[in-house]
């Protein structure tokens, strides 16, 4: 574990260094040019706003995260279930699956106002948009995972007279896990987008609402503080999935961190 930890630290060193350097350059540029903070506040000011108004930020962050996670979980469960149906039903696979794939050309963000018409300005619109937008990548990835079982492995299981049920739990499911996690990583970021967009369009709370409100008040530091908090929360959610993945998909060699050379 310690060796593992030091490896992680080594991998994080360069990105962290570049981030810090970037923030310092930003800070210096604002001070040198005398840019007004309504246009571009320096990082120090954004940080100060986060500290000073953390209760306001958290009060709006919480409902957004709650709806994101809920919509995401619904998408994961729903996506896996639909993927199983796609895997085992030839009719669904040949009739429904292509429709799902083609429906991906519809920009789901564009139908957010429609959701408001249908479901009102409450949390339902946010939740449904988060679900809808994250459901498709989840389904497609899981379906691919269930179906991409090596031909030889299926043959091997047949020689031992494996039942459908055994083959599903002992082969298809573990085989699909890496795909499911890949889908989850895409879905969680999309779920956040879904919630924020829904909150832009119509909501009385949430971090998306706060960003829009601060924009309307020309309070750029608050707006950027809200964006920062949202980004950190999104990163945390992604990280949770990545950690769960490395535990669940223990048999795959850990991928080298991109840019982690040192």
């Amino acid at each position, binding site marked *: 574990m310690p060796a593992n930890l030091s490896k992680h630290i080594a991998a994080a060193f360069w990105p962290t260094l570049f981030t810090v350097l970037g923030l310092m350059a930003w800070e210096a540029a604002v001070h040198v040019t005398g840019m007004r903070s309504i246009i571009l506040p320096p990082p120090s000011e954004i940080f100060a706003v986060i500290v000073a108004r953390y209760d306001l930020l958290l009060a709006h962050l919480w409902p957004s995260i709650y709806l994101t996670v809920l919509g995401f979980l619904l998408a994961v469960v729903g996506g896996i279930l639909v993927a199983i149906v796609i895997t085992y039903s030839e009719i669904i696979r040949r009739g429904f699956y292509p429709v799902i794939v083609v429906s991906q050309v519809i920009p789901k963000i564009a139908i957010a106002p429609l959701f408001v018409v249908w479901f009102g300005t409450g949390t339902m619109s946010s939740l449904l948009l988060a679900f809808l937008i994250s459901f498709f990548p989840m389904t497609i990835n899981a379906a691919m995972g269930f179906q991409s079982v*090596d031909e*030889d*492995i299926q*043959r*091997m*299981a*047949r*020689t*031992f*007279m*494996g*039942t459908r049920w*055994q083959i599903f739990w*002992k*082969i298809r499911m*573990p085989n699909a*896990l890496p795909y499911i996690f890949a889908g989850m990583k895409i879905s969680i970021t999309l779920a956040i987008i879904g919630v924020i967009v829904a909150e832009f369009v119509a909501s009385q709370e949430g971090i998306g609402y706060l960003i829009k409100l601060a924009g309307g008040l020309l309070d750029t530091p608050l707006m950027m503080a809200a964006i920062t908090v949202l980004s950190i929360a999104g990163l945390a959610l992604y990280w949770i999935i990545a950690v769960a993945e490395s535990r669940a998909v*223990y*048999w*795959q*060699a850990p991928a080298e961190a991109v840019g982690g050379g040192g």
Partner: protein
Amino acid sequence: MTSLAASRAMDMDVPAPDQERGRVSVLRVASVRKVYDQLEAIREVTLDVVDGEFVSVLGPSGCGKSTLLMMIAGLVDVTGGGIVINGTPVNGPRREVGVVFQSPVLLPWRTVLQNVMFPVELLRLPQAEYKARALDLLRMAKIDDFVDMLPRQLSGGMRQRTAICRALVHNPSILLMDEPFSALDAITRDEMAIELLRIWQVNRKTVLFVTHSIREAVLLSDRVLVMGRRPATIIEELRVDIPRPRHIGMTEDESFNRMVRHLRRAIETSHAG
């Protein structure tokens, strides 16, 4: 489903007394034919394998010898003729058959031991009893130090050893091997052949071994059947009377090489014709 229950009931492995060995027919392939979309893959194959015998089917790549093995394993239907294992016609995979494929086909998320136990789970055999057997097999295959490792941590040879243990764990009466060493390098390949003989010497399973290596066939077998090009039939049969236990040094012997030459000529004539 009744045939399944029956085959499970009669599987209890009672070793035949020595004088009976080599007499009881375990596998009988009678005038088997296989046609894929009007393409004749196997014209007519008849063979008989008796209890405890090690028989190789030798032939060039793509001659249909793997198809023959898959039909015996119950994975591919025959177009004509019939296959009988232990007196019962084959019409699907059977409990008393163990198969080793060209590649190890291990499940990457399972450790060596869990992979070997996979058939035990699928066939719902008593775990504790068969775990002891799995560990015995792994010890015999000299991979008992690696039981908790994942396939990706193993060498190609160790993976194929694991696959052989998996094919034997449920105590089948016949072991079918489909070019099991063809993915290995030449040195590992010889090593594995000797290892296989050692394991076989202890277990004395009936083995049907498909290969395109003449040398391997002679080194391992009691009997070598040569299959000609498509549409395939058996064109030559050779009894290998080299004493057992065999070792790699025997491949230098004149009698060994005479047999290799004989088989090569048989294959070449089939090509010309």
